[in-house]
Each structure stands twice: as C-alpha cells, then as structure tokens.
C-alpha cells in the first residue's frame, strides 16, 4: 500500500480510530501488528512470509543469546542470525547480479558457464526490515538492549507499518520500549503528525514526482539528449530523490506521531551540508548511523592508523552503495562518497569551522560533488553515467525543457528552500506552528489545496522501495 494512494488515505484514519478505541495495550499491539501485515501484504501477500521469517530468526536468535552463558554460544546465535538474514537478502537482491557478473568474468577467460538465474520479484523494503532486525540482534549481543520475550511485540517492532518499507530504520532502544507504553489520544500529537505528513506529501507529490517527469525521460534515453539536458536533469535529480525519500520518511514519522510514537529524524536539510562528511550526518541518518555503529566502528572506526581509517571509510561506503542496489552504479556511487570523505579527512575539512565566505564556497563545492555522484546513482548503466558526465562538460547546448515543467519545479523548489532556511536557522516564523489557531489551520487547508492542484497524483512508487 502506497502512502500516496487513496487506499492508504482510508486505511490510516480507520487504523488510528480503532487503535485509540481498543482498551488494552496488548490488544492494541496485536491490532497494529495485523494492520502492519495487511499494509505489507497489499504489495505481494507471499512476501509477508519473508518478513515473518526474518522476524522469527532474529527473535529466536535474541532468545538464544539471552539464554547462553558463554560468549562463544552467544556469538554463534548472532552469526546464525546474520548469516540467515543476509542470505535471504542476498538471494532476493544480489544473487542474479553476482551470477551475471561471474558468467561475464568467466566468459572473458574463455569459459562459457551459465549460472542459473532466479526470476524473483524484489520484496518491497527488504533491506530496511532486515537491517532493523539485524540491528536488534547485534544490540542484544552487545547488551545494549533488553531481550524482547513477547513475540508479537517484537514482530510489531520489525513490521510497524509507517516505517516498514522505507524507514527510518529504527533501533530497538528507541522503538521497542514505545510498544510497552500506553499511547493515549493526544490532540497535539495528531496535529503535529498531520503537519509532518502534509509536508511529506508535498515533498513527494509536488517536488519529487514533478522532477521525475523531467529527469526520468532524460536518464532513460541518454543517446537522444545533449549536455544541457543532462545538466538540468542532474540538477533536478538530487531534489527528486530528496523529495521522494525525505517525503516518505516525514510521512512515516507523521503517521507514527498521530498514534503517539516517536520515530527518528531521517533527514536534516542535507543540501545545506558544507562537506560530504556533513552531508552524511544529514542524509538518511538512520542508515548512516546504522553503518557507523554496526560496520564502521566494529572495524576500528577512526581509532586506528590513518590508512586503516581510510580503508574503513571506503568499505563502509561501498557496502552502503551495495545496500542501495545490485548494480555497479550504486557501488561506484558509494565508492565516490567514500573517497570524497577520505580526501576531506586528509585535508582536515571534516573538522573545519568555516566563516561565511568559506561556508558558501564549501557548500557550493559539496553540492556539486554530491550532484555528480548522484549521476552514478540514477544512471541505468555505468556507460550511461559516463556519457552523461561527459555530455555535461563537452556538449553543453540548449536543454530540452517544457516551460510548464520548469515553472512547476521552480515553484516547488522555492517553497522547499524557504522552509529549509527557516528550519536550518530555526527562525520563529513557521506558519505551521503559528500561535494563532486560524493561521495554523489555514496552513493545513492551503497545503492540501496546493497538493491537489500542483501535485503529480498518479500514485507513483517511492524510489527507495526498491532498496
């Protein structure tokens, strides 16, 4: 079920009303669990089995870790959980990519080996819930979180519908305890949640999907376009993916808030970053902190030799690239981000506190390199990515552009930019939080009307569902 579908707009209020009517915490959690599985099964019912399997594996592994007295036994349960979950992920997401590459490689050496390929549909949000469940296993092993003995509560933690398919990837330390608290009806929570959801919908429907109307035809038909079009598409794509993903996260955070749950912030104005390191403190925060805590730090983090530290950064970001998809374009994208951060560490930029002019220069520089890296993320193939990059620098001609698209994107970007400035500098002029009742409510009315009029309302999928 998509957040931007009529189905969800009916489903969500019904779930909220029933949730608050139900008498006890236990019944409420069971109801939310049922609703979450219903939400997930709207895509492909059979894949709920995978969700259930991953949940059961990590639940049993955590119990095993808890019952084992010896470290070796605990480790065995952890490794079992990691291997089984990552095997599911590998089979559904990476196996065909690996098989194809091995066949190609062997063919280059003159050996014709056709590896079997599986025609499996990638289950929606598999990387998100598997990482969330694995985070729990590791936290239990480290003793950072208590073992959840109630299977249904744990299953709800893994499948909680607002953040199930595209995050934020929650930590057991934050979300699990919230399922043990009574969430009473709160007017403030509902209004805050609705405002967050509306801004999420705005980012998705007015910004991201409008940018997509321009970006997708260019990136999908590279031979037919010139450098001008590539440049414009490469400038719009960062906002498309931001609007798409931050929009989903905000809608998720808002939906959870309406029911009284607090999810983690996932985006903090990433394009205001002045270094790539800073960018990763602001972009997909729940994933970058996951990699920091479960990949980068266990490898030694930055408390090792300089060279080893660079190696750790590179590995972390290459793995992050692979997490995004089974394609060399994602691996290169991750590697580019890793390399840029190594360069920043080398130059000491990651710790620098610039003044205004320095900030502006580094903001511009960071934005440009992030945009360039996005080309690899979005391009269908590596050769397309290189053609686009080459085209931008060598064939800068008049771009293909429809005035209407340009106006719509410019309008959306202006509004987003103003809102981001207000948030970044914490200016106390937010209409949505005005002390005047009618102004706050007119903001909601205005946003709904604006989305109906200018949003792209054809129910497009969120990009991050594929990861």
């Amino acid at each position, binding site marked *: 079920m998509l957040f931007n579908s009529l189905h969800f707009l009916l489903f969500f209020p019904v779930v909220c009303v029933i949730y608050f009517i139900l008498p006890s915490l236990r019944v409420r959690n069971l109801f939310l669990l049922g609703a979450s599985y219903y939400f997930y099964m709207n895509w492909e019912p059979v894949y709920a089995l995978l969700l259930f399997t991953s949940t059961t594996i990590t639940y049993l592994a955590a119990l095993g870790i808890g019952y084992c007295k010896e470290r070796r036994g605990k480790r065995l349960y952890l490794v079992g959980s990691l291997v089984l979950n990552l095997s599911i992920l590998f089979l559904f997401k990476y196996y065909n990519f690996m098989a194809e590459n091995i066949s190609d490689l062997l063919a280059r050496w003159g050996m014709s080996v056709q590896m079997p390929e599986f025609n499996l549909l990638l289950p929606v949000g598999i990387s998100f819930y598997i990482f969330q469940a694995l985070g729990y296993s590791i936290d239990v092993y480290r003793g950072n979180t208590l073992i959840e003995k109630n299977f249904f509560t744990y299953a709800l933690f893994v499948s909680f519908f607002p953040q199930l398919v595209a995050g934020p990837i929650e930590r057991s330390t934050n979300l699990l305890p919230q399922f043990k608290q009574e969430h009473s009806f709160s007017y403030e929570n509902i209004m805050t949640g609705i405002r967050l959801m509306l801004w999420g919908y705005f980012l998705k429907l007015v910004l991201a999907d409008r940018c997509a109307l321009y970006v997708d035809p260019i990136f999908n038909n590279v031979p037919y376009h010139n450098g001008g079009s590539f440049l414009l598409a490469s400038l719009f794509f960062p906002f498309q993916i931001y609007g798409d993903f931050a929009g989903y996260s905000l809608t998720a955070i808002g939906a959870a808030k309406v029911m009284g749950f607090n999810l983690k912030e996932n985006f903090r104005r990433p394009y205001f970053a002045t270094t790539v390191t800073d960018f990763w403190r602001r972009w997909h925060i729940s994933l970058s902190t996951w990699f920091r805590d479960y990949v980068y730090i266990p490898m030694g983090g930055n408390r090792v030799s300089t060279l080893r530290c660079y190696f750790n950064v590179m590995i972390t970001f290459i793995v992050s690239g692979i997490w995004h998809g089974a394609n060399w374009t994602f691996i290169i994208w991750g590697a580019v981000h890793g390399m840029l951060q190594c360069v920043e560490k080398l130059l000491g930029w990651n710790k620098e506190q610039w003044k205004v002019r320095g900030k502006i220069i580094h903001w511009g520089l960071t934005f440009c390199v992030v945009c360039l890296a996005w080309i690899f993320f979005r391009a269908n193939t590596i050769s397309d990515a290189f053609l686009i990059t080459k085209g931008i620098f060598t064939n800068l001609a008049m771009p293909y552009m429809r*005035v*209407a698209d340009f106006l719509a994107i410019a309008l959306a970007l202006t509004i987003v930019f103003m809102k981001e400035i207000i948030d970044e500098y914490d200016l106390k002029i937010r209409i949505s939080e005005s002390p005047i009742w009618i102004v706050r409510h007119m903001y909601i009315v205005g946003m709904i009307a604006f989305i109906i009029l200018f949003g792209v309302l054809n129910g497009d999928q969120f990009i991050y569902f594929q990861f």
Partner: protein
Amino acid sequence: MKNLLKSLLFVFVALFAVDRIGGQIMWWVNQHTQDMSGPKLKYLANEVDADIVLLGTSRCNFHYVPSILSDSIGMSVYNGGIDASNCIYAHYFVLNQILLHHTPKIICLELMTSDYAVSANSFETTSFFAPYIGRSEKADSVFREAGNYWYYRLCHLYRYNAKAVSNMGGLLVNKQLESESGYIPLPRPMFVPERLDKVHKSKNIDELKLQYIRKFIMLCKSHHIALAFMVSPAYSEADTDLYGTLKDVAKENEIPFFDYHTQGLFLNHPEYFKDSGHLWDKGARLYTSIFAHDLKHYIVTHSTGN
C-alpha cells in the same frame, strides 16, 4: 477530542470553500491561458468554422499543415489535434463540442493503436477536458465510464491538476503565436531518431473504445459530415494488422482509411522525423502535400461517382 473535532470541521469547511473558489479561478485561467490545449479546446468549442477539421492527438497537431491542405482542396481547414489526447474518448468529446455550434463538411481523424487497443490506463489522457465536467454532458459521461467522475465532481481543484501549471504558464508565455490554424510546427531535432523495432502482433481490442469509435462515426453520419481516417508516418515498421480492426470498422461504414504508417512512407528518411512518432516541420509539410493529394483524389473520384 473536542479540539480535534473543531479542527477537522474547520479544515473541511475551509477546504470546501477554497476548492470552490479555487475551481472558479482555475476555470478563468483555463479560458484565458495561451498554452497549448486549453485555448485550442476553447476555440474548437466556440469559434471554429472551417470546412475541414482535423482531429487527433499530437501526431495530428504536428503533422498536418492546414494552408497546404486548404490550397490543394479549396476548402478552409483547421488542425484541431490536441497534444497528449491519444484516445477515442477525447476525440469524441471534442467532436461533440464542435457540433454544438458548427457542422464541418469533413472531419479527418488521425488514429493510433491506442484508439482501439487495451492499455494499462485507457482514460489516462482524458484529464485535459476535466474542466468541462458539469459543463458538458459528454464530458460527464466519459468520466463516468472512466470511474473518476465523482472525484472530479467532489473536488473542483482536482479537475485542473493535470494542466494547472501549464495553464498558469500560458498566462505568461503565449504558445499560440507559433500556431497556424491549429498546426504547431516541430523544430528540427538535434539527433536523427532511432527506428523502433517492428511491431508484429496486433493488440487486444478494448470493446469500449471500439464502441466510442462507432459512436464517433454515427455522430458524423447524423450530421451528414464526411469522415476520413488517417494514420500518418511513424519511424517504425508496422504490420497491417496493427490497424486491421480500425480498417474493418472503416470498411463497414465506407470511410476512407489512409494508412501511411503501414505503407512505410518516409521509412528511408529519418531526417524528416523529430522522434520515432513525430515528423518535424519539414517532414510535416511534405507529408501534408502527399495526404492533400490523396484526399483530393478521393473527394474528386467519389463526388463524380468513379
């Protein structure tokens, strides 16, 4: 709870008011914009008085030069092709709007496979005439068939969703300046387009679309309007059976069918194409003169009874 109910009530009432007032403003914008489809539809619905009116989608809009046709046939011609209106429901609606005030002598309808074949969303390209809901019984009936009539009925702003930005942009930029009796010339492309693969299989028939094609024919017959079907050149090879269904309907009703796509016209001239589906101005002028010759020949032979 009381606070929430108060807030919800206010939001619903204010949203209703904003929707209705916004709907009126957007109708005004729709009627005054100088964008592509809005003014053309308005002209077709209120002012067109040409003897020959060409209808269809962008392939009609960009492929037929009225002055060339007019010079050849000796009748006034208007190109009523509307960009991104590739379904028979749209053409049927447009024809009804024309007939409210004018009866042309000949209607030439440019057809595509999407006019009869099953597609993922058959009514996808009908949203451009959503502003006419409540103002035209034919528009209402099409959207009832599409199943989204009540969304449009409930939310007036939603009627302008597809075209809001371009309509507002049309208040600033006049796109009708380039228009010659409805024809919009496409510029020379930057690259020669690639030829699309040959399409072998005929498509599954959408019975509702076929029913609307018959309604279109009946409407012309009842107003004694001569009708001609065309399929203009495309930079792709086509099997005859791609249009076989439409040709059968044409034959049943003694309607001439000019199929230049299957004939492979310009297939060896990629330089005439803007992309695989559209001719640019040079190709359009050449093609119109060929079509004008064929249409004139048909008119002459049939008026003399040969």
